[in-house]
């Protein structure tokens, strides 16, 4: 199966059509800029109104590296990696996951780089933002440096959820260092005990950079039918079609829904707190099955937080209470539903004769058809002539603003809407300029969200894919130059 849509953009497009479920796209850290990943996940959090997560992944395959063309990777041998006997393979894994740890740290710092109340809209002093509440992150690592702050204000959750699937020591350390949830794949109770032991060891070896305890979820693959015999028959049929038995890193449960429901928590370590509502769905294995994630150990004593490691010269931020996505066991308050707003087909702009074809082209005096006017709409989100002091001005970042703007442009039959992009906040006199509207979403991600609430209008954005000081400087072989 090949040809899959970008997970972050897909999740962002799904967000306006859902109201409660968390959305956790997989994004690699091997071939992406941490800054873009961070603002992308922040934007998903805005579009979903607080339901965003990020499943951190590394990409170890040499052909993927050739595709992106920014580095060459030696061939990865998963068997050798698991054995841990080949120094080159071990070094590769440590490098990839070390980079992932740095990327998660950068993302978390960027998510905190605006305080929650940074936008003040103070008409008296003319200031849109209180620049004292925006913070450079000044991350300096072996692989990249990122200055910050984010271009995107702190999202509804503050810190979107970070999920890491892990099977061995190095990824366990990534999870302990930076994840909210670690996904594990035990095959039985003894295996789970061993995994928890390894996690505990990891918790002693690395500093946890997250305030909350690490949660451990067991990943299982399920195939359900009305009877256990039917489930086995379906599995046999799929295996026969596939040509070989389905294998997975997880336990495969082919059974009735009731039996799966009974087995899953048992597998997920009964001596820990159970969470009956914890199963979420994610893209699965070769048969298009569902891989459920079951919450197991809610609080691991070995994974107690030891405080975020951050530069003490930088002010620490107070985080707002986390949204319930971060604790699936807690009762989730009812979220305001935002069903897809249908374009108003009865708007007076349209002729009542309901012609579905384009209008007849008018002609000038000599019978020549008139040139047709093309209009695009520019979202006046971030610039120094956006009126923000007016009482009618609304949020420049809430998804409701983008929805209103886009649907209104579509009502006006515009050809396309246009979003500009900038990757750093304007500075003046060495300080962040505080008089203009600042704080914009990741362009591609917000356009994916807008695509979900419009039907006809074209969507165009400036994508600055170059590297700027705010964003990062990866130790690249080439001097980057601006590209639009």
């Amino acid at each position, binding site marked *: *199966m*090949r*040809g899959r849509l970008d997970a972050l953009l897909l999740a962002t497009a799904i967000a306006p059509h859902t109201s409660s479920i968390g959305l956790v796209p997989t994004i690699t850290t091997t071939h992406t800029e941490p800054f873009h990943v961070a603002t992308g996940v922040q934007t998903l959090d805005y579009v979903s109104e607080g339901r965003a997560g990020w499943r951190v992944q590394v990409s170890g395959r040499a052909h*993927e590296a050739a*595709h992106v*063309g920014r580095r060459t990777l030696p061939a990865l041998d998963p068997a050798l990696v698991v054995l841990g006997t080949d120094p080159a393979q071990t070094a590769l894994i440590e490098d990839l996951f070390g980079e992932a740890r740095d990327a998660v740290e950068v993302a978390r710092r960027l998510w905190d780089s605006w305080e929650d109340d940074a936008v003040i809209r103070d008409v008296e002093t*003319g200031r849109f933002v209180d620049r004292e509440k925006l913070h450079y992150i000044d991350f300096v690592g072996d692989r990249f440096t990122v200055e910050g702050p984010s271009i995107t204000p702190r999202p509804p959750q503050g810190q979107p959820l970070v999920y890491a699937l892990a099977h061995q020591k190095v990824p366990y350390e990534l999870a302990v260092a930076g994840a909210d949830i670690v996904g594990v794949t035990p095959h039985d109770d003894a295996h789970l005990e061993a995994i928890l032991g390894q996690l505990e060891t990891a918790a002693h070896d690395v500093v946890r950079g997250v305030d909350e305890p690490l949660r451990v979820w067991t990943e299982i693959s399920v195939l359900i039918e009305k009877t256990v015999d039917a489930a086995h028959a379906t599995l046999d049929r799929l295996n026969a079609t596939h040509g070989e038995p389905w294998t997975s890193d997880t336990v495969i449960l082919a059974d009735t829904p009731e039996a799966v429901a009974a087995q899953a928590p048992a597998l997920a370590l009964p001596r820990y707190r159970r969470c009956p509502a914890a199963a979420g769905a994610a893209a699965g294995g070769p048969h298009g099955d569902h891989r459920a994630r079951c919450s197991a150990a809610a609080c691991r004593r070995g994974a107690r937080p030891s405080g975020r490691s951050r530069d003490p010269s930088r002010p620490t931020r107070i985080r707002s209470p986390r949204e319930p996505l971060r604790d699936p066991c807690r009762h989730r308050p009812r979220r305001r539903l935002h069903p897809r707003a249908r374009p108003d087909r009865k708007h007076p*702009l349209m002729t009542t004769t309901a*012609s*579905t074809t*384009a*209008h007849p*082209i*008018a002609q*000038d005096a000599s019978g020549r058809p*008139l*040139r*047709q*006017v*093309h*209009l*695009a*709409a*520019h*979202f*006046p989100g971030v610039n*120094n*002539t*956006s*009126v923000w002091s007016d009482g*009618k*001005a*609304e949020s420049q970042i809430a998804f*409701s*603003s983008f929805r*209103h*703007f886009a649907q*209104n442009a579509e009502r*006006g*039959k515009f*050809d*396309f809407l*246009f979003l500009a992009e900038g990757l750093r906040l*304007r*500075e*003046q*006199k*060495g300080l962040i300029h505080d*008089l203009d*509207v600042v704080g914009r979403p990741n362009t591609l991600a917000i356009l994916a969200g807008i695509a979900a609430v419009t039907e*006809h209008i*074209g*969507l*165009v954005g400036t994508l600055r*894919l*170059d590297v700027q000081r705010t964003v990062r400087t990866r130790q690249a072989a*080439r001097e980057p*130059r601006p*590209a*639009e």
Partner: protein
Amino acid sequence: MRAEEFVAVARALWDGWAPGALAANKKTGEFLSADALAAVDHHGAQFDVSGFGTLPRSPQGHPVIVQAGDSADGRDFASANAEVIFSLHSEFEDGQKFFRDVKGRLPAVGRHPDSLKILPAATFILGDTEAEARERSREVALLQVSPQTAISFLEQLWGTDLGGYDPDGPLPEIDPVLADEGVTRGRVRHVADPVAVAKAWRGLAEAEGLSIRDLVIRFAAKHTFVGTPVQVAEQINRHVQEEASDGFVIVGHTNPTGLDDFVDRVIPELQERGVYRTEYEPGATLRETLGLTQ
């Protein structure tokens, strides 16, 4: 250069999957048609990309390329690659000149004039009468350019703290400070001779009796179309009929409601004149909506 190569690689990746590459034939077990995928093997000054595109061909095949930027290089890039130019030439005569220049470059690269649309940015203020629109334009401009913004704007040219000056008073008599890098970086850039520019601004302000804030409004908050909905529609239509543009990128002055009045009041006037769609073509791609010829 980098943009040129960037677009070329993107196009190669977009072309990597043939239309109908996804066979997904359950009987034969064939998921991808044979030879449906073309490998990209690009090694250039800017990028190395080798492998297959990861996505099937999208509905448009090639999404529409929009370019903003106005240098001679930018115009060459646009004439070779872009399908829409987001320009800043919204004044009528200037627009005609730009239109002729850019469209005139197209035959040399084998392109039809209608394969590139020129859409300048345009702001607007509406009123029931022209006088009311002008008054409203002034009110909006005062909101756009606060006293603090006016001083900040000047500081970018002057390169020094002007906090002591009255935004409603005359321009500073002192000359700009040239050395201070940190302040000049910003919106007003590429000013070769700030002292001369300051002198010109001072002259303009004295001649027309403009305060600091008035002058900054003149530069930063001058609205492209100010008038009744009929007047604005007629001005837009004139630009298009007389080839000063193919249309406009409309920029509302506030968020997110800045476009509402335009949609409610100007669009019907354009539709009345038979120069603007009353419906989208069902299922049209952006390329089709724009009327881009291949």
